[in-house]
């Protein structure tokens, strides 16, 4: 098959793999099987039980250990002659700079989040090293080649923003299970157990909303003196499922065209219970950490089947019990907890709270298994798709290291037949000349320059939207902001002061038509923000109170706001294509891929076949109609 020269090129090629998870395990195996011998891999994650169904280099005994290290050791067992270097680290760490990337012939991504992908994309563009990207979800997968100046970069077509919901839907008028799950995570969970003192929409429900909220209205989430955990749990129950819902009912306008919710009070739901169930003895010998995580309200109540949908009473019991267990078993964490899909008790709390709210509002309740999937944005993952996509990556990596650039392809693995095909490919697309990452394209920032601070712009736009890791801000001839370990105290102080300044209050005010440069030396990324002053923003639709516009308009998927905006940061495989509205994950890649699909359809159109597209083709494209329209 391969000539001697090609085999040699494969042998000496230096390969960087980013990610040693679902795709990574398969990729490392197929690389060494194919003759690659010089591989470095980076992964910051440790092994979890839910990885074991597909990350075949890991065993149960490895749970908790570094994925990169264990993968390396496992592969060396069957290919002792391979040279593999494992980094248990974050690819965003400064040690992985452009010079580091330049050492490699090709970079292969098997990542699970879009921020890291964007970062690696910029490193590869700056270093001039070809990048093979990949993603899978369920039966669907793809592999894509990015080479600067030749093909699209990862960011040439921006993704639809993560799905979010209007605040009012979450706080007052939920109509789907996901609304109640987002509510349970962001409101009661965060209020009771999260960062202390944060006001949220569960407060301020007093009759007298006039001036100062009553003490009772802001401190309701605190345990009162001499209050037992169960009494506390019951009081919280009545507050969030009873009084607050009753309050909402007073807003008559909301219910003109909606079914009115029913408030729930603990005395009515569980008239017989006010005492906690008997405490189960602790398991002997388990270490403290395990024990903490294994505290479970559902198993205390004998509800072991995670696929069972609980009744109203069962949900109420799980709610009370989970609150009690947080108070009694995990008191030290209260005030700093963040929702984590692997935290059993947190998932139980969120499941029961969202189900209780579902019942109030006449929405279908969910099993713990289903609620966990939605709450944790869990990416569906199977071994076979990862194996297939890893094979595709190796095919493209082989072409790159043997110089067959004219043969490079973008590959897809489909769940449903596309004509007769399950696996297919096209030529990669050329770069988008309007991409602000791989071309010099202006960006516009609409902002109220008399109100917004530089710090807000950095947080909401530069870091969150532009995925810049360590920004330097230049305006005219002066540096307004910088980050790094090498700053002296004066610099740190002055930059912190600048961050707190409103844009128009700088010595040379930043105002309408100002040009502000952003520079990230780690990514070798720079861009210029054209400031457009604007006084008025729609708080519901533009919660950042500032809007970034580029030449490439982002896709309008879920316009709006506050709650539930985080992207899935789950799992090890990553994903590109979305089969669930909530799992709006790492879709950047999808977009450029779909651009390819469209291109192919057009090519087919030239042959007069476009009108005969099979129905399933249309449906697979429905996911991103918005994207196609914008291309």
């Amino acid at each position, binding site marked *: 098959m391969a000539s001697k020269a090609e085999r040699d090129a494969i042998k000496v090629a230096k390969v960087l793999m980013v990610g040693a998870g679902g795709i990574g395990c398969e990729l490392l195996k197929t690389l060494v099987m194919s003759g690659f011998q010089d591989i470095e891999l980076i992964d910051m994650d440790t092994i979890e039980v839910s990885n074991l169904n597909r990350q075949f280099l890991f065993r149960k005994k490895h749970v908790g250990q570094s994925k990169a290290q264990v993968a390396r050791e496992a592969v060396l067992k069957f290919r002792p002659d391979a040279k593999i270097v494992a980094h248990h680290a974050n690819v965003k760490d400064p040690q992985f700079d452009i010079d580091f990337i330049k050492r490699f012939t090709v970079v292969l991504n098997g990542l699970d989040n879009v921020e890291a992908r964007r970062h690696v994309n910029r490193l590869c563009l700056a270093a001039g090293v070809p990048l093979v990207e990949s993603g899978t979800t369920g039966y669907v997968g793809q592999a894509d080649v990015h080479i600067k100046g030749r093909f699209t970069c990862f960011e040439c077509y921006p993704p639809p923003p993560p799905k979010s919901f209007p605040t009012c839907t979450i706080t007052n008028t939920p109509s789907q299970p996901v609304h109640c799950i987002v509510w349970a995570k962001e409101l009661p969970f965060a209020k009771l157990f999260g960062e202390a003192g944060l006001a949220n929409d569960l407060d301020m429900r007093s009759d007298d909303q006039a001036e100062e909220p009553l003490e009772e209205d802001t401190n309701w989430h605190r345990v009162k003196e001499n209050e037992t955990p169960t009494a506390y749990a019951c009081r919280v129950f009545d507050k969030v499922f009873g009084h607050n819902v009753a309050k909402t009912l007073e807003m008559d306008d909301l219910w003109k065209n909606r079914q009115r919710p029913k408030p729930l009070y603990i005395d009515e739901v569980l008239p017989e219970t006010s005492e906690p169930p008997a405490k189960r003895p602790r398991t002997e010998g388990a270490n403290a950490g395990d024990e903490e995580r294994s505290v479970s309200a559902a198993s205390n109540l004998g509800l072991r089947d995670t696929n069972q949908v609980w009744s109203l009473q069962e949900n109420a019991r799980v709610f009370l019990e989970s609150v009690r267990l947080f108070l009694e078993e995990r008191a030290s964490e209260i005030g700093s907890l963040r929702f984590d899909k692997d935290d059993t008790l947190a998932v139980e709390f969120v499941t029961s709270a969202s189900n209780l709210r579902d019942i109030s509002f006449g929405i279908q309740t969910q099993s713990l298994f289903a609620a966990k999937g939605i709450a944790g944005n869990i990416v569906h993952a199977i071994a076979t798709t990862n194996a297939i996509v890893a094979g595709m990556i190796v*095919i493209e990596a082989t072409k790159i290291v043997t110089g067959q650039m004219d043969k490079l392809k973008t590959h897809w693995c489909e769940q449903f037949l596309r004509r*007769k095909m399950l696996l297919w490919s096209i030529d990669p697309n050329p770069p988008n000349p309007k991409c602000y990452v791989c071309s010099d394209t202006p960006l516009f920032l609409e902002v109220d320059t008399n109100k917004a601070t530089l710090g807000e712009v950095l947080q909401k736009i530069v870091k969150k939207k532009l995925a810049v890791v360590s920004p330097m801000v230049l305006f005219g001839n002066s540096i307004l902001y910088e980050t790094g370990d090498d700053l002296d105290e004066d610099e740190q102080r002055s930059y912190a002061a600048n961050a707190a300044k409103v844009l128009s209050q700088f010595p040379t005010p930043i105002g309408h038509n100002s040009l502000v440069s952003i520079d990230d030396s780690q990514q070798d990324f720079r861009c210029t923000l054209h400031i457009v002053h604007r006084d008025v923003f729609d708080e519901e639709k533009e919660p950042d109170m500032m809007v970034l516009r580029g030449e490439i308009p982002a896709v309008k998927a879920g316009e709006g706001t506050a709650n539930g905006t985080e992207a899935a940061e789950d799992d090890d495989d990553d994903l590109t294509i979305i089969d669930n509205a909530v799992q709006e994950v790492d879709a950047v890649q999808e977009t450029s891929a779909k651009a390819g699909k469209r291109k192919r359809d057009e090519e087919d159109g030239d042959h007069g076949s476009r009108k005969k597209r099979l129905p399933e083709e249309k449906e697979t494209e429905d996911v991103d109609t918005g994207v196609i329209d914008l291309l």
Partner: protein
Amino acid sequence: MADEGNAMLTEQEAAVYDRQIRVWGVEAQKRMSKSNILVGGAITGIIAEALKNIVLAGVGSVTLVDDTPVSAESIAATFILTPDLIDSGVSMGAACAAALQDFNPMVAVRSEEGNIVDKAPDFYDFFSVVLLGRAPLDLQKKINGICRSRGHKVAFFSADVRGGIGQIFVDLQTHNYTPFPKPDTTPEPQTAQYPSLEEALSFSWKPLLEQKRKERTDSLFFTMRVLERFEQAEKRRPGAVSAADLPGLLKTRDDMAKSQDVLPEMIPDELLERLADAGPGELPAVSAIVGGILGQEILKSVSSKGAPVENFFLYSLTKHTGLIERVPPLKKS
């Protein structure tokens, strides 16, 4: 049967299989865990890939029958064996069973002495699926026939990769399944009727080639038939071909085309040349890809979840496509 639906997965199963249950559902997972898979023929790279996939997924049991000793070649082609097994006298079946068992303790993986050729028909009664690795055409047909003769359904798969080209044959006899839902639809249960390998291969080529352009059977299908006929006529072990066999392959192609009354050019010389060059070798990336599809299809067959391949899957590296051919074609309803 009545209890089946109520049986819960163990906590361990629920934890390990969580991500895939989100793909195919808990009922499909339970059905998988009750399936028994027999693997005969040579355990090549693609078979090792498929085995890894079904063991990880949690089928009930896997039984391997391959008494050839582990060699340097088999180590090079499969990734599940360590180099210290070379020339140790251990059989491929035993070595692979031990390695696979380690992948997932919740699956019973065992090795059966002897050769698949010698197994009596009632040996097959225990199994829900038979997967045949690299094996001569006659043996494939014979075992497919045995699978069809049992009192219950025994699904049959055979698969091989040569260089950058891979093929899977599937016979699920009468298969009832629930397709995966497409957006905003509720799928109806479906039934697929499969022909045996014998029936599929005896169908004449002309109607396959006279279908509308988009439906026309791909040249890869015919190319594989030429290779198989050549190996059979020359009494070669499958894969025992080399570049020197190209003239013989071309002649076989011409003879077959003539007797089928089709043009020989519909099988490009280049494809046969590539197969001759490949000999017994497999490209690991292609084995990973076709082994991924094979694993997936075995899981679909035992879980009755998802539309299965009917009835040939063909992959070509040069075209970068994996396509499905139904032979004989389904009649349009």
